[in-house]
């Protein structure tokens, strides 16, 4: 009987706290949104499942959680900590960018270089949020990592946090992916607020065809320029452009296929699951609760929403500003796509515009600031790394 009691003490039931229950419910909600609402299922589903797994309580001493490493005093590196190492070491995000690069078509951006400005403007969300985070009392490193949420690129956010503020990685990653999933709800009100009905109806002329030579030169130029300007962006931009070159070169199909498929999927599963599993409701380091259900994490979520809004705002306003100088007006809605969240925000733009002109197809035009935003926030991350490392 003693043995049974002893075993019962090790069960999750005996160690369950309210925080865990809340987080398990949160995990279930994420899975629900992923499956039923189809919000970024490739990410939210494994994240949600990870949140459940990460909040199953267990008696301390068992090496089960993502934080149970020998360095943290566990008798052994837990399996989940080994997977999580792919996140904290920062290796999964560049590998994911490799795969994304191998699947992304930059034609739109190449045919319309002006639109990179929109991708740049939306990054204002990053830096305003960085200031906001400082105001809320976060340190410089933390504020930078929180600000990058406004870049609306999951891998970039995770990469920067892993380098600057690994202790906030969980909430930052979850916030980034959550708001990316919620882009269709966040952006339209801001669009309505800033863009006049007449502007919403502006049509843009079809882009010119891009030659394969241009497509091949593009990744090489981007990596050299971006990395010379902000060397810290190398891991992200370098891998993104390597993947793209593998795709566009036409001579390494088998490599680009694997990069965009097996490798991307493996890294996506492991990264999302591990990020989810890192959200333990409460976790004590040196007596301080650094868990997920703390005011700090809530602050991050608030700042995340703020940063997405500012980024959208920045993109839209800058697009209107550009129109003051352009002979051939652009539809300012595509400025909202500059936040990245590839390809969701570009779709939101198209969907929004078609409510006012059923035959106005902006998707291709919106892809230009969309992918420029990816490069833009990678450069922003590089700047932060350069300043704070």
């Amino acid at each position: 009987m003693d043995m049974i009691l002893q075993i019962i003490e090790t069960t999750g039931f005996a160690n369950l706290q309210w925080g865990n229950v809340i987080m398990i419910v949160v995990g279930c909600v994420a899975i629900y949104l992923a499956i039923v609402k189809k919000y970024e299922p490739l990410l939210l589903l494994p994240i949600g499942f990870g949140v459940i797994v990460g909040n199953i309580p267990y008696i301390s001493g068992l090496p089960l959680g993502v934080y149970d490493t020998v360095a943290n005093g566990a008798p052994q590196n837990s399996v989940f900590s080994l997977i999580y190492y792919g996140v904290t070491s920062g290796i999964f995000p560049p590998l994911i960018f490799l795969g994304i690069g191998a699947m992304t078509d930059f034609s739109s951006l190449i045919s319309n270089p002006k639109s990179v400005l929109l991708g740049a403007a939306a990054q204002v969300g990053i830096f305003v949020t960085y200031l906001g985070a400082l105001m809320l009392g976060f340190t410089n490193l933390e504020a930078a990592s929180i600000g990058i949420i406004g870049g609306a690129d999951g891998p970039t956010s995770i990469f920067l946090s892993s380098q600057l503020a690994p202790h906030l990685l969980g909430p930052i990653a979850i916030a980034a992916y959550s708001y990316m999933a919620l882009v269709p709800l966040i952006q339209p009100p801001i669009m309505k607020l800033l863009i006049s009905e007449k502007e919403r109806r502006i049509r843009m002329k079809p882009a010119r065809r891009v030659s394969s030579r241009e497509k091949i030169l593009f990744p090489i130029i981007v990596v050299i320029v971006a990395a010379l300007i902000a060397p810290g962006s190398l891991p992200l931009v370098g891998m993104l452009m390597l993947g793209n070159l593998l795709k566009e070169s036409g001579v390494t199909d088998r490599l680009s296929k694997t990069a965009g498929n097996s490798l991307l999927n493996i890294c996506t599963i492991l990264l999302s699951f591990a990020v989810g599993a890192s959200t333990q409701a409460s976790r004590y380091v040196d007596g301080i609760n650094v868990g997920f259900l703390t005011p700090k994490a809530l602050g991050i979520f608030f700042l995340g929403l703020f940063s997405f809004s500012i980024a959208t705002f920045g993109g839209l306003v800058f697009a209107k500003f550009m129109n003051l100088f352009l002979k051939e007006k652009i539809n300012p809605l595509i400025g909202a796509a500059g936040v990245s969240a590839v390809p969701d925000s570009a779709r939101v733009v198209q969907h929004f515009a078609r409510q006012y002109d059923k035959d106005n197809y902006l998707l291709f035009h919106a892809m230009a600031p969309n992918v420029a935003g990816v490069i833009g926030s990678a450069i922003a991350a590089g700047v932060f790394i350069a300043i704070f490392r």
Partner: protein
Amino acid sequence: MIDNIIQNNGFNIALSGIIVVFAGLILIAVTIHLFNKIFERLHRQPETAVSPTDNPQSVSAKKVLQLADDELVAIATAIEIYRKIHFETLQTQITFKRGEQQPVWKSGQKYGQRLNINKRT
């Protein structure tokens, strides 16, 4: 509140940050633009052959025009698959070869791993 920003040199960092982002992206845009100009001057008539994947499609689409819909799909898909498989085969077969992606269609008999469907001996 604001104190923390000032102490951390926040405004400077934020301003410099956004400037660098703009600088980087503008530089990229300019470089692409310049390259395009240069190439345009060098070769007055750029590739009319457009992207290589379009042509075979339209060709095969024409070929099968008079067939029924189901068969159309079957044959067209089969051809697409066929090309995919044998393109891959070409590259995969042995170690690292130079991935010469010539149109393998109609030159089927050379490679070992396929059906010798045309061999009517």
